[in-house]
């Protein structure tokens, strides 16, 4: 009921989970959905029925998220599934991804837009190879916050010592990651301890529950509000009597803040003008910021088209034809350094070649392999890329949107790799 009154102030938080069948990921998601009343009776009935037909004596909550026939039959998550729930404070989007190494690309996909990564550790097993791998991907994709849930605490007698040992091991490893905000929570997804409600079994834990963390974690700084970037998607020209000379440059703000009257520069032409108006639909605004979709008019007639970027005069992205990327290969067809690929970055599309493999990441040991130059599906690697025309890019570290690109195979039109600009 509160929801209907507070909804105009609710924020949106996207988080990603990765895990395999037995680490309790589905149970945890099921509990978050169930306790926030996002599971409906008819969905639960359907899942109950399916669980019974499979001969299970408990309700298999993974059946809620594994939507495809093959996934249900094989009992595995293959593709990213998106789930939704809301509390009076926030709306949540979960990108639920499989945890197995052969689905690395799905984890990368889920991580690309997430504010938070949930990493699950089985308290009985401690930090394992999969924990390192998931955390590394979260760090590579620059997810701003990691919440490490040490799960199945009920099976280790809610022992503080077990918990502290795991935290210690993880922190040692995490010093190598680029994530600033890492939190630890001892939970039991099955019994509900510290998920939505505080545990009565772990008085030694003074921190907040998982849900409280999800509801309050500060996401206001996750967007870049410093470097103003406005890539143009299309130009709105009504050709009507009332708006005869209207030229609205339409797009989504990828960074920073733009205000009416400010001087801007259009790239690649380098031409300057000032902002005349900013619109969201027919509503006129005095300023706009990431990630808003707006249209802008300028005080000068400049030739601007899709692929151009509007920025501020004293803060411009650098033009570059050659740069380094951290990348993940997504396709069965391996990388060919002689092939001309299509590179899409922002609203630009150019040709490009991935000419030099600097190293390949051994994802199980997290070591760099400088010898092996073969790049196939699910490989994470660092490479040099050369493109046919200048791209105006930022480093991914500064801006996840203007610093990312996808690689498209010209013959099949499929997206075969993704890159993050160094």
């Amino acid at each position: 009921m509160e929801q209907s009154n507070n909804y105009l102030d609710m924020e949106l938080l996207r988080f990603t989970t990765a895990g395999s069948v037995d680490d309790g990921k589905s149970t945890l998601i099921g509990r978050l959905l169930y306790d926030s009343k996002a599971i409906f009776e008819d969905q639960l009935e359907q899942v109950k029925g399916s669980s019974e037909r499979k001969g299970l004596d408990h309700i298999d909550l993974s059946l809620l998220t594994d939507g495809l026939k093959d996934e249900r039959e094989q009992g595995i998550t293959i593709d990213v599934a998106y789930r939704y729930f809301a509390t009076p404070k926030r709306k949540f989007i979960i990108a639920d991804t499989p945890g197995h190494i052969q689905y690395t690309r799905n984890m990368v996909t889920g991580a690309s837009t997430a504010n938070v990564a949930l990493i699950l550790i089985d308290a009985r097993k401690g930090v394992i190879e999969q924990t390192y791998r998931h955390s590394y991907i979260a760090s590579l994709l620059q997810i701003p916050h990691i919440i490490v849930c040490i799960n199945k605490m009920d099976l280790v007698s809610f022992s503080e010592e077990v918990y502290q040992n795991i935290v210690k091991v993880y922190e040692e490893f995490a010093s190598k990651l680029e994530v600033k905000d890492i939190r630890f929570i001892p939970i039991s997804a099955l019994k509900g301890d510290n998920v939505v409600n505080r545990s009565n079994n772990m008085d030694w834990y003074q921190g907040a529950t998982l849900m409280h963390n999800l509801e309050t974690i500060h996401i206001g700084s996750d967007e870049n509000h410093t470097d103003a970037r406005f890539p143009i998607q299309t130009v709105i020209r009504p050709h009507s009597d009332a708006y005869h000379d209207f030229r609205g440059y339409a797009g989504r703000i990828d960074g920073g803040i733009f205000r009416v009257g400010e001087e801007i520069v259009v790239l690649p032409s380098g031409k300057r003008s000032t902002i005349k108006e900013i619109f969201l639909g027919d509503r006129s605004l005095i300023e706009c910021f990431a990630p808003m979709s707006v249209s802008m008019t300028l005080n000068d007639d400049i030739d601007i088209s899709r692929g151009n970027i509007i920025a501020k005069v004293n803060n411009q992205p650098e033009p570059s034809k050659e740069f380094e990327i951290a990348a993940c290969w997504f396709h069965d067809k391996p990388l060919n350094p002689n092939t001309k690929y299509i590179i899409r970055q922002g609203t630009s599309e150019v040709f490009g070649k991935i000419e030099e493999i600097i190293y390949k990441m051994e994802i199980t040991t997290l070591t760099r392999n400088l010898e092996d130059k073969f790049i196939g599906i699910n490989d994470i690697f660092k490479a040099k890329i050369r493109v046919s025309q200048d791209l105006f890019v930022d480093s991914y570290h500064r801006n996840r949107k203007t610093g990312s690109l996808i690689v498209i195979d010209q013959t099949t039109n499929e997206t075969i790799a993704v890159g993050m600009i160094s």
Partner: protein
Amino acid sequence: MKYLLSHLQELEAEAIFVIREVYAQFQNPAILFSGGKDSILVTHLAKKAFWPAKIPFPLVHIDTGHNFPETIQYRDNLVKELGVKLIVGSVQESIDNGRVQEETGLNASRNALQTTTLLDTIEKYRFDAAMGGARRDEEKARAKERFFSHRDDFGQWNPKNQRPELWNLFNGRKNMGEHFRVFPISNWTEMDVWQYILAENISLPSLYFAHDRVVFWRNDTWISNGPFVNLKPTEILITKRIRYRTCGDMPITGAVESEADTLEKIIQEVATTRTTERGSRADDKRSETAMEDRKKQGYF
């Protein structure tokens, strides 16, 4: 000023971005318009995306001939108001031309027949992108759907070989004869849709608001009496105060008993409802993978 969007503002920004990408990346896109709240929302967002220009896409209605009259009336008014082109693909015509065969029996429906009419219409007008109001929270097969969903030259969906979508980079490249289905409101829930409709004051067909109607009880829901319904002798007509949560075909779309006659009351009702909105649609109840099976064929 706080530089942070509310969840509705962020969903709106995402949807407008996707709609503009469709305009920029495709030659001949269209909006699939059913007259339901979700396609009304997509149309509203398209209006915002291109203001002060008109929506640069036609509205395509796949007409089963079994519509609620309120839906058709709403559709015609909206088309006039927006000044956009309306294209109607008729299931009746597909039946008359022998493209499909009408189902028979008590639970006969034209739902599945729509797929043929839809694909024929897409082919006839050479649409290369068809935007729809489907949402991932509606159904488990839809939870796996992309924003830009590729269809082969038979109009089929291959859920196991979908293009990855990262950041805000959408790949709409395709070969001749192939097309895309695009779902700008993928990330919206039923609640988000209602909250946004209230916040933006979007008008809806009267069916969504509580009203008195002659109905009967079938498949665990209230079905409206009408010209396309075969009543069983045991089914009794009764006047109930009801409203619809979705607007599908008249003979298969169930109504819920409700007193919610304003948007505020509907939002309160949605907040406390314990069943999904598609739970009252017989088309989804045919089997556990009914939606996935239909989607693979080319359904909405």
